[in-house]
């Protein structure tokens, strides 16, 4: 137990009515102890059932525990108690974004920004969601409901992929490390597409073998995060790999969504080529 947590625990023990339970629950959550955090939050909520911040902190904990329904209910309760609550709006946006619904996340983020104009994280999150929507709209002529499952690649997907490739926003290469489409530039603006594709030749075979050895099924992607950029590899076809590179401000979850959409486009493009 770290010292601040110990101090807050002592404070709460001395005065069970103290609102320090909010900070204690959050500190335990951040420390990676969601179960004790949930216990603290629920005990506090029993005393303050109308406190929106308490529902907000419980929701964050439940989200960490992958209890999406519970987190959603808690954030919705917080919003009902305090309309425009910034934390609850951000939380619901996060859940929708994570569920692959950036369009649904957008109004919640806008509400959060209106409620907390000085929260530096919200403009960045808004920019990410809007950028993702631009990519999604460019890649998919008609958006299908998430529940419909993976969509077969369409001609529009293929054309959108061509547009991405021509902007060097993605790099498509074959199993031998030869560039098929797209490109990549280093920070100095040099074309490094062929070199990067060559270095990654064989990655598909190794990823597939690793997944097979562990009985994990087909591999779906490899993400590499570094302090100045993220790389994500996805297999649009058994003999091809698509690389999407973005700066580190782009969360990996969003990168996965972008790459999956780009892979669908690449699959359509490859099918048309063949």
């Amino acid at each position, binding site marked *: 137990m770290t010292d601040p947590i110990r101090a807050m625990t002592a404070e709460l023990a001395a005065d069970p009515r103290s609102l320090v339970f909010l900070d204690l629950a959050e500190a335990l959550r951040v420390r990676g102890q969601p179960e004790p955090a949930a216990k603290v939050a629920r005990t506090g909520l029993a005393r303050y059932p109308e406190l929106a911040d308490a529902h907000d902190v419980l929701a964050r904990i439940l989200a960490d525990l992958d209890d999406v329904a519970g987190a959603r209910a808690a954030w919705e309760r917080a919003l009902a108690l305090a309309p425009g609550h910034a934390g609850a709006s951000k939380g619901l946006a996060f859940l929708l974004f994570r569920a692959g619904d950036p369009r649904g996340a957008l109004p919640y983020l806008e509400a959060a920004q209106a409620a907390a104009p000085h929260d530096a994280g919200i403009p960045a999150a808004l920019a990410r969601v809007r950028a993702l929507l631009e990519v999604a709209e460019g890649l998919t002529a008609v958006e299908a409901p998430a529940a419909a499952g993976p969509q077969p690649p369409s001609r529009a997907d293929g054309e959108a992929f061509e547009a991405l490739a021509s902007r060097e926003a993605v790099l498509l290469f074959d199993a031998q490390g030869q560039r098929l489409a797209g490109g990549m530039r*280093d920070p100095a603006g040099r074309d490094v597409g062929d070199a*990067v594709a060559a270095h990654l030749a064989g*990655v598909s075979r190794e990823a597939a073998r690793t997944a097979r050895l562990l009985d994990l099924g087909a591999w*779906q992607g*490899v*993400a*590499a995060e570094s302090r100045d950029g993220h790389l994500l590899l996805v297999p649009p076809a058994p003999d091809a790999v698509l690389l999407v590179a973005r700066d580190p401000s782009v969360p990996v979850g969003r990168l996965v969504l972008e790459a999956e959409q780009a892979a669908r486009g690449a699959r359509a493009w490859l099918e048309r080529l063949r």
Partner: protein
Amino acid sequence: MTALQATLERVTRVRGIRGAMLVHEGDGLVVAEALAEGVEGAPVAALAASLLARLRRAAAGAGLAPPEFLQLRAERGAVLAVPAADELLLVAIADRDANLGLARLELREAAGRVR
């Protein structure tokens, strides 16, 4: 139990983590492991080290810093890897319903403890 073993055991306490290994990056050999029964550590260790080496070269070729976190996603789970000190690589094997966010935090923390 050694400190290394304790570090690995702590990683495996995250829900859905089937095992963890400490692997030498250069040769892909297992240095220490805490794996569920039936998990083949040695070949997975070699492949994880090789994957990281490829991505390191690709990142260098793209003018990026070396990867600090690696994740292989598959239909029914994932393999996570974090470089640690002394050319070691901490690798965890996750089921489909694992809490990957928590596993990621735990791995990073564990990698920091490997000295």
